[in-house]
């Protein structure tokens, strides 16, 4: 392995997991991050990490069920082999993190305690208080620090990734990056580049994300030729604390531990929440979704909260839309033990003790299910082939994407506590494949210097041009604000084609204006102004792809909700008529899937995204209607069962289904 180097961009869970595994396999790693890796956005993940476990197993759960929940929760938009592999690895991932010293909450007997999360009926979620992401990240950070002290890992913190370096054959052989302190721009030769740079929440202005989640690194890969998959699928988390600078996450674990969402039945009820009697409270999630209650999948909870405030006018606060998330019925000690971290955040930033008074929450942009398109190589059992260099590679050979910035695992909607899993899993899983890749390739360090010099020159001229531009009058901070407002209006909870078209034109206009940014800081030392301006400029290709993807998808699926194209509920009360409606509903469902059960693929032509659809690998689980809370769900389910039973009689599909089990 001498002379082989891998560049990992991003030091969150995925990047650190990959770094740790690569170092363990003897590969030298350059780890590049906008921030000291210990401060990566993974620290904000609160609720937990999912896996089947000894307890749920005895209740009938297994890996297949976890896989099924993930696919069903994601509305079948995922290629299934990677998801299957992830679900089967999940118990191993948690065992590993346990061994690394993560302070998971414990049962009285000393086992890892579990809580229930959305979209499942089992208590699969391991957690460390309400700061699980932080704890997992720290465990990996510590292992990477260990390899760093052994000399296998070299960290470049406060470095901004500017783009991949491609050789003449289009293979990625390194990257160009900029030191955010000294402003030096240099290239890093690498036999493989892993981009694990997280989400793009800043495209929406305010979100639950950290300030460095601009999506610019992924955008720079996109602009260099990498494909985006499913960019329009943006998870809006149902429960966040509205704030002026940021929408702070209020974890799903608050509901997992028994938190109840409600509003007063009477609009504009000005009474203190605890004075409102039970029968005058509307626990709308529990009433509408008796099976899952407050733990319906996120996309559904979000729409319901949005709907209750926007359409039904039941917001609990006249000035700022919100509903109550109530924990006050749970004993204080238990709250402190299991949710301490997030309750402190609420208390600190809102000045109200959520143990005493219901929290006021509202949905906020939280996670990008879509991202850089990545490949995989399936095994004969329908999982992934371990050690294949095809796993997690983008369409640019040698350029890999992991974690939130890939599109692979969560389909149209991510289940709570699956993101930490997908990050760690993909990080661990990608490493052996990269080692195998490097066995066959010429070392990047032996390539002619001119390739790298050229790439650096491109970035240097961009940088200099920005500093030199004093004629423009655009302020990057204000442009960002406008972009965020536009995107939040058009591309979050509810989407409408006219509005999407309008937003697309607006964003194109903003993009043109962003070329005319003039900087208030033209210095060459720790110039945050120019770094931010570049990030803003690179938000536009991603924003346009989100809008384009949303525009082209005339259906509702997971987090992407277009009322104009939503299947109606069944209306008839007459059983026979209802059955007929259900048949028609299922016909529509099948026809819609033919058209839209495809991954959105965007490529960049230099000015705009080019859209296409790509079929989805559903080799393991046939798509079925996602019916949480729909009126007439029973009838549809019945019809659907009959249909799939007759389909199962066909030999080939039976084989496929059993292959995975």
């Amino acid at each position, binding site marked *: 392995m001498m002379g082989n180097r891998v560049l990992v961009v991003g030091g969150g869970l995925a990047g650190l997991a990959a770094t*740790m*595994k690569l170092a363990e396999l003897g590969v030298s790693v350059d780890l590049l991050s906008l*921030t*000291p890796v*210990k*401060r990566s*956005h993974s*620290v*904000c993940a609160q609720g937990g990490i999912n896996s089947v476990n000894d307890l749920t197993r005895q209740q009938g759960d297994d890996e297949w069920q976890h896989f099924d929940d993930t696919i069903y929760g994601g509305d079948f938009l995922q290629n299934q082999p990677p998801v299957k592999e992830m679900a089967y690895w999940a118990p*191993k991932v948690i*065992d*590993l993190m346990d*061994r690394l*010293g993560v*302070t*998971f*909450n*414990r*049962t*009285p007997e*000393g086992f*890892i305690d579990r809580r229930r999360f959305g979209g499942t009926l089992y208590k699969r979620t391991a957690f*460390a*208080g309400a700061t699980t992401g932080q*704890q997992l990240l*720290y465990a990996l950070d*510590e*292992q990477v*620090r*260990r390899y760093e002290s052994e000399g296998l890992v070299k960290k470049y913190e406060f470095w901004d990734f500017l783009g991949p370096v491609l050789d003449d054959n289009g293979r990625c052989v390194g990257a160009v990056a900029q030191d955010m*302190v000294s402003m030096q721009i240099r290239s890093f030769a690498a036999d493989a580049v892993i981009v694990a740079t997280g989400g793009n929440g800043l495209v929406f202005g305010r979100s639950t994300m*950290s*300030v460095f989640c601009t999506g610019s690194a992924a955008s720079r890969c996109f602009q260099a030729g990498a494909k985006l998959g499913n960019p329009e699928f943006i998870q809006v988390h149902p429960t966040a604390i509205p704030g*002026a*600078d*940021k929408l*702070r*996450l209020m974890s799903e674990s608050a509901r997992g531990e028994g938190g109840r969402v409600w509003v007063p039945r009477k609009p504009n009820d000005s009474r203190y929440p605890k004075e409102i009697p039970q029968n005058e409270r509307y626990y709308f999630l529990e009433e509408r979704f008796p099976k899952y209650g407050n733990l319906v999948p996120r996309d559904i909870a979000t729409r319901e909260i949005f709907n209750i405030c926007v359409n039904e006018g039941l917001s609990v*606060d*006249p*000035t700022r839309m919100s509903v109550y998330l109530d924990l006050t019925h749970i004993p204080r000690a238990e709250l402190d033990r299991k949710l301490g*971290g997030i309750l402190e*955040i609420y208390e*600190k*930033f*809102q*000045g*109200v003790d959520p143990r005493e008074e219901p929290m*006021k929450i509202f949905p906020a942009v939280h996670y990008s299910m879509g991202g850089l398109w990545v490949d995989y190589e399936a095994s004969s059992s329908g999982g992934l082939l371990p050690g294949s260099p095809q796993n997690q590679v983008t369409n640019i050979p040698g350029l890999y994407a992991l974690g939130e910035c890939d599109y692979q695992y969560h389909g149209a909607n991510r289940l709570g506590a699956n993101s930490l899993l997908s990050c760690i899993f993909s990080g*661990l899983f990608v490493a052996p494949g990269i080692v195998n890749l490097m066995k066959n390739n010429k070392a990047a360090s032996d390539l002619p210097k001119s390739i790298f010099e050229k790439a650096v020159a491109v970035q240097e001229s961009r940088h200099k041009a920005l500093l030199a531009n004093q004629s423009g009058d655009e302020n990057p*901070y204000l442009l960002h604000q406008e972009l965020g407002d536009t995107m939040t209006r058009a591309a979050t909870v509810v989407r409408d084609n006219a509005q999407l078209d309008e937003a697309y034109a607006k964003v194109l206009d903003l993009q043109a204006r962003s070329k005319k940014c003039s900087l*208030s*800081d*033209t*210095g060459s*030392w*720790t*110039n*945050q*102004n120019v770094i931010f301006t570049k990030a803003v400029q690179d938000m536009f290709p991603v924003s346009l792809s989100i809008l384009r993807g949303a525009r082209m998808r005339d259906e509702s699926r997971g987090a992407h909700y277009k009322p104009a194209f939503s299947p109606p509920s069944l209306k008839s009360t007459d059983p026979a008529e209802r059955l007929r409606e259900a048949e028609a509903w299922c016909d529509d469902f099948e026809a819609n899937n033919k058209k839209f059960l495809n991954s959105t693929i965007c490529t960049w032509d230099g000015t705009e995204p080019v859209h296409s659809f790509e079929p989805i690998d559903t080799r393991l689980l046939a798509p079925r209607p996602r019916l949480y809370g729909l009126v007439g769900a029973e009838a549809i389910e019945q019809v659907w069962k009959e249909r799939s039973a007759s389909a199962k009689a066909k030999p080939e599909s039976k084989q496929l289904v059993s292959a995975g089990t």
Partner: protein
Amino acid sequence: MIAPGSEAPKRKPSKINVRVLRQDGPGLPQYWERHQVDYEPDMNVISVLQKIAAQAKTSDGKKVSPVAWDCGCLEEVCGSCTMVINGRVRQSCSALVDRLVEDNPEEIELQPMTKFPVLRDLMIDRSRLFHNLKRVKAWVPVDGSYDMGAGPRISRADQEQNYPLSQCMSCGCCLEACPQFTKIELQRQPGETDESYDLRKKEAYDQGFIGAHAISQAMLFNAHPVGKNIADERMEALTGTGGIAACGNAQNCVAVCPKEIPLTTSIARAGRAATVYSFRKFFDR
């Protein structure tokens, strides 16, 4: 302010005066600069700094480069945005303007941390803090990441003791407030390579006080069933130069820790462990 009627409406200023201690680069002089931003409800120091960055003008209208600062999660879990606000070290994201003006309606005073080299304005170089985690080998020395089954069983009591320690976000508040933790700032010598400069810094850091955060992490990992396999190596660091003995028991660390980590308990535990370790080392060899 959000909850109607929950608080009597207080008179809020329409403008916020901010005094920032700026520095253009390492080794350059520091200078104060006044800024003024419009007041909005629910502001924190981060949003004040964002406004300052966007307007890039001092309070007397002079055009200046935006103030540089570091921030990340904005919800007090990443540890980025530590600075000295009105004379006290804290996270700027959780420094709410309404509270700050209650204490001092005249102005908000922002300074970079004083125990770390300033890179620019409010940005400081905290690499020493992370380096000190290496000194105490703050990790569990696992064989590797292959699947070896679950980790050791851990009692709820142990978890409840360790979890608070593992919440340390390396923000550096404890070090800033510690009278025994003093600044180490090296100047790059002309013609010095990155490697030799880094080595020189590392050697200087190795002699300085290790700090409450690293002591606490050492105790966290010494309490872990597998982590304690290298407990002696950690104790060697803690009983070495700049180790636990340099603590002066001023206990500011625990008072300023935004995560309320029981740092002084960790320090006392480390003291006890050091007593036992040094006796053992002396008499067992």
